[in-house]
């Protein structure tokens, strides 16, 4: 088949010694930032963007793929050994994982998390290989109005479905879209929101925005909230699993994958919902329900598989439609743009070598991660002993260097600080970061689709729903918007109530 020969071609690119080295580097970096709470793959890729300009696109993306998957692995280590999730997607892992570690079964918890992540990641990546070309085939037939509709859906869904407060989500989205508007209008050349400042005419570089919001904002937040803590990591030897553990893990792994992949592939899936669903399902299906709450291995295996499968799923809309649904995918999309590569359904046609090398490197990265994490998980936990002032000083240093090097303008440093303060205020007031980043990155593309659609229909607004796909998508948008009402109705049913209760339990943690 065509797809498989392309994939083999991708492996040929990704398996050169140079690219393997970049994959290894990405995997190590990804695991490190995954282990450290507060740092994530999105921030890391944003910080690396200016550095990687000097590299060919393939090398950079192979490294990014490693960081992306690595973050998912690292997060579980911290969850299990410290009871502090390293990443938002491993919040659920901490529930049973830390209990297991306390009961002296940390090795088994780490092993089931790493092996489950590997299996889910591999299955997820195979599904990506199969699905992405199909989605592309469908997507190339779409016109501008349908694209516009799908983008609106994905922005709304990310804003309204994820996070605890819709109002805060929409505030963040509005801020992002406003930042995306800054600069000269692409069609008329009119200046928008530049305040007479000629340096703003080209708009604010996405790299500067991402670095400011992720890195500077987080550093300021940590500096303002540095609590003196000295927790203990639970000591653990080599991760391993007994026969009984394998028997109890393999079904949750597969079920977790089945939850994670579709949620990741949908616009606005994210990894939090499927990990949670997986946990609830395992609890219900388990033959050892009495162990839940005291360290049940199923409660680690399922969610860990779910979050990696969702990471793979996220790449389907990212590569085939140019639609990111989580922060890391959004920053990777920005990276495509920096390399002058137009993301969208034509990506597979125009840049086959890059795309297939990226996909092949996901398989390679996943395997490397298993090799790096299974024997070394306890060593990674030692990273938590780094004093945070040193860590964040380094991050701010790299952020400043990166922001300056994009355009070699001191003006960008001012913007970095202003947006960094914005990032700090957003954390202070509980505004989610993801809608803002998506707004900045998708905003200009959304506008372009809207303008083209309106030009095609001669300025008639009805042109926006002239395609059947667009109509269907707008119906889904309507459903997303009235979802709170539906949820209220659902809550009255016993199943809905059970889910709600579990949610509250997790929130209360």
């Amino acid at each position, binding site marked *: 088949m065509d797809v498989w020969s392309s994939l083999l071609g991708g492996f040929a690119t990704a398996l050169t010694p140079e690219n393997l080295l970049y994959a290894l580097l990405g995997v190590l970096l990804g695991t490190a930032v995954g282990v*450290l*709470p507060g740092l994530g793959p999105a921030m890391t890729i944003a910080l690396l963007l200016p550095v990687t300009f000097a590299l060919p696109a393939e090398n950079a993306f192979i490294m990014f793929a490693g960081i992306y998957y690595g973050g998912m692995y690292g997060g579980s280590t911290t969850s299990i050994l*410290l009871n*502090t999730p390293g990443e938002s997607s491993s919040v659920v892992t901490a529930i049973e994982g830390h209990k297991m570690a306390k009961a002296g079964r940390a090795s088994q918890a780490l092993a089931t998390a790493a092996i489950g992540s590997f299996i889910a990641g591999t299955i997820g990546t195979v599904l990506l290989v199969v699905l992405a070309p199909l989605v592309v085939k469908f997507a190339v037939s779409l016109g501008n109005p349908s694209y516009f509709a799908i983008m609106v859906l994905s922005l709304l869904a990310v804003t309204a479905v994820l996070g605890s407060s819709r109002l805060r989500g929409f505030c963040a989205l509005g801020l992002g879209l406003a930042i995306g508007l800054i600069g000269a209008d692409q069609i008329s050349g009119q200046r928008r929101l530049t305040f007479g400042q000629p340096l703003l005419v080209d708009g604010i570089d996405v790299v500067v925005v991402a670095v400011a919001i992720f890195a500077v904002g987080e550093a300021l937040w940590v500096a303002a909230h*540095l*609590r*003196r*803590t*000295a*927790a*203990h*990591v639970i000591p653990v030897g080599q991760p391993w699993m007994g026969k009984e553990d394998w028997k109890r893990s393999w079904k949750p792994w597969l079920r977790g994958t089945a939850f994670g992949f579709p949620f990741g592939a949908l616009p606005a899936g994210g990894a939090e919902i499927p990990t949670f669903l997986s946990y609830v399902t395992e609890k219900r299906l388990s033959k050892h329900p009495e162990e839940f709450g005291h360290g049940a291995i199923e409660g680690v295996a399922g969610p860990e598989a779910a979050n990696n499968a969702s990471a793979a799923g996220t790449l389907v809309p990212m590569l085939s439609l140019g639609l990111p649904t989580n922060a890391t995918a959004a920053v990777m999309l920005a990276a495509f743009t920096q390399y002058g590569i137009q993301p969208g359904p034509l990506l597979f046609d125009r840049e086959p070598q890059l795309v297939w090398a990226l996909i092949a490197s996901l398989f390679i990265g996943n395997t490397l991660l298993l090799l790096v994490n299974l024997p070394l998980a306890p060593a990674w*936990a030692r990273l*938590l*002993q*780094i*004093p*945070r*002032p040193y860590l964040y000083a380094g991050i701010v240093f790299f952020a400043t260097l990166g922001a300056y090097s994009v355009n070699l303008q001191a003006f960008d440093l001012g913007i970095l600080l202003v947006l960094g303060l914005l990032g700090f205020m957003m954390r202070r007031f509980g505004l989610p970061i993801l809608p803002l980043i998506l707004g900045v990155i998708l905003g200009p593309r959304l506008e372009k689709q809207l303008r083209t659609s309106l030009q095609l229909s001669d300025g008639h607004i009805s042109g926006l729903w002239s395609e059947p796909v667009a109509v269907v998508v707008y119906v889904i948008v309507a459903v997303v918007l009235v979802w709170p009402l539906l949820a209220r109705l659902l809550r009255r049913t016993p199943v809905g109530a059970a889910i709600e209760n579990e949610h509250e339990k997790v929130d209360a943690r």
Partner: protein
Amino acid sequence: MSVVVGYVPTREGETALDHAVAEARARKTRLVVVNTSRGDALVDQRYVDEEQLAALEERLDGVEHLVVHAMRGREASEEILAVAQEHRAELVVIGLRRRSPVGKLLMGSTAQRVLLDAPCPVLAVKP
């Protein structure tokens, strides 16, 4: 007057504590055990937790003692020296360990600071 010991839950720390207990008994004076952390990293394995603290108290049963267990953002050496000053130490006990060349580059030496700056004799023990 008192005997002050810098304690960490490692082999070096335990050895130091053993010697300090013996010294305090021989001198018939009070033993002050110092265990602190700067608290700026998420994890500090050398700062004893509740369980270890209880075990420590149990071990020191029968010796007149005081445990200084605090997180005040200061270096271990500063804490030990401050406690030695405050409790008019006649002896400070610390544990020594070997450091690799890289370790010497990365980490400061608590032991060296205590040895050079202590107001009284210092007993340095090796496991």
